């Protein structure tokens, strides 16, 4: 259980985090979203005890960060932004160093390192200096380091940055497998990642918490949520579609010819649209229900306008 109360962090005159408060329970997989410079990384640095907040309090379980920092840090696995490591070491040496710091010894240490190396697939590069590894491998070394002691709290700053789609998928699976009774916090720029792995989304902009709920609730904020898009193979009279009950608005994309019907709030319109199409024998070659567009909601939330 992490509890953050009224945390403010100032760097000189610049306010990076401005009055952040939230609780995170075990089982929560939280995605931090936000534009660059919004305070995501600063928040993570405060949560891991790397920097102290100017004001406010961070508690983990029944311990306060400013009093029991080292005790809290034993519970946390952290992948800092950019996955820094000691470049002159090989992944094997590096993981042994981390394991020793984490208090693992002897056979348990070797077994655990072997297990983690397999989880993130580092076998082929174990004895090459980290400096010589590709970005993807460096990131995986960072991940291995973070999960090595099987922490209760895992904080990952942009864990999939620089990975190819296969590796991204792999990391997401890794996070999903970990997170049954743990707290996982990831920050990312990839909006789809949040719906793929998280069960809670926090959007931070200008140091404020702008949104805190499920990925589904985030999608529902989209104008496109439950909207129906269709495409006609040749032009026909579609004016009747806009008149259907429950349809608030219709937009036609001149370029692609795609028609999008927006429902009134909370209405489902797909069956009505379908009936209408059947009755009028409209030449529809494509019809689907939109899931909501995260990028649009994200822009709306972070640029200050409302989503609807």
């Amino acid at each position, binding site marked *: 259980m992490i509890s953050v109360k009224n945390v403010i962090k100032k760097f000189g005159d610049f306010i990076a985090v401005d009055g952040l408060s939230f609780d995170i329970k075990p089982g929560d997989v939280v995605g931090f979203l936000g534009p660059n410079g919004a305070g995501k990384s600063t928040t993570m*640095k405060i949560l891991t005890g790397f920097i102290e907040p100017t004001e406010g309090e961070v508690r983990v379980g029944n311990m306060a960060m400013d009093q029991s920092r080292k005790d809290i840090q034993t519970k946390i696995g952290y992948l800092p932004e950019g996955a820094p490591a000691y470049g*002159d070491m090989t992944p094997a040496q590096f993981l042994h160093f981390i394991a020793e710091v984490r208090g693992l010894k002897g056979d348990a240490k070797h077994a655990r390192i072997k297990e983690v190396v397999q989880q993130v697939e580092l076998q082929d590069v174990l004895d090459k200096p980290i400096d010589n590894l590709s970005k993807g491998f460096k990131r995986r070394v960072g991940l291995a380091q973070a999960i090595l002691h099987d922490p209760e709290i895992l904080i990952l700053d942009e864990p999939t940055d620089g990975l190819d789609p296969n590796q991204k998928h792999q990391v997401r699976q890794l996070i999903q497998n970990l997170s049954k009774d743990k707290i996982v916090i990831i920050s990312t720029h990839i909006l789809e990642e949040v719906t793929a792995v998280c069960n809670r989304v926090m959007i931070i902009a200008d140091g404020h918490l702008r949104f805190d709920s499920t990925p589904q609730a985030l999608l529902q904020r989209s104008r496109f949520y439950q909207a129906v898009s269709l495409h006609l193979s040749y032009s026909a009279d579609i004016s009747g579609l806009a008149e259907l009950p429950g349809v608030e608005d219709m937009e036609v994309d001149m370029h692609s010819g795609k028609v999008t019907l927006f429902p009134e709030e909370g209405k489902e319109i797909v069956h009505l649209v379908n009936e209408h199409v059947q009755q009028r024998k409209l030449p529809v070659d494509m019809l689907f229900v939109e899931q909501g567009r995260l990028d649009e909601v994200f822009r709306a939330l972070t640029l200050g306008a409302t989503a609807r």
Partner: protein
Amino acid sequence: MIGIVFKREFASFFATPVAYVFITIFLILSGIFTFFIGGLYERGQADLLPFFNFHPWLYLFLVPAIAMRSWSEERKNGSIELLMTLPITSFEAMMGKFFAAWAVLALSLMLTFPLWLTVNYLGNPDNGIILAAYVGSWLMSGAFLAIGMCMSALTKNQVIAFILAIVVCFLFVVSGSNIVLDAFKGWAPSVVLDTIASFSFLTHFESMSKGVIALNNVVYFLIVASLWLYGGLLIIEQKKAD
């Protein structure tokens, strides 16, 4: 924890060419100073005084070179964020780093043993004096090292850390030299003169190089090292996230 950090740091000196280059240069320079400038043979005395006399000047440039990376590099590549979020205190990290670099210095000193063999072959030196001088020299190198590490904590840039460390070390060395003392002589009261001289590494090392390990000299170097390490600790706590 200090031990774990020590092991990593010490290994990293040898994983990169730093330790090898350092030790080689140290051995070459100390050889040159001892034989050509110090005139070990010409003096006709079986001791290592010409060797030890140049140590403050040798350390002045070489120790900042080995100290400059200690914190600057961590801050530059961001690994400090990793280090400081592991359950290691800043104090443990600082001491681990310090002892690792100090061990490299000890190793360099030990590798000058051919000089010791040479004087033993040529005559009958007092080996107790030589051992005492070695210990004194190593103590002094610790003080240089602490200054260098404090300067390294100050900046992300290793070159700046190197230059700052040389400047500060230089002040500590020359404050006991005749050039500085002469400038004060004649007008400043002797108390001032003594105070300035008492800050100098030269003054405190002089008797040590002759084999006298006086408690006040040992304590002096330990205090200087502790103070600069403590300063470095305060700086790194303050600037780690910059």
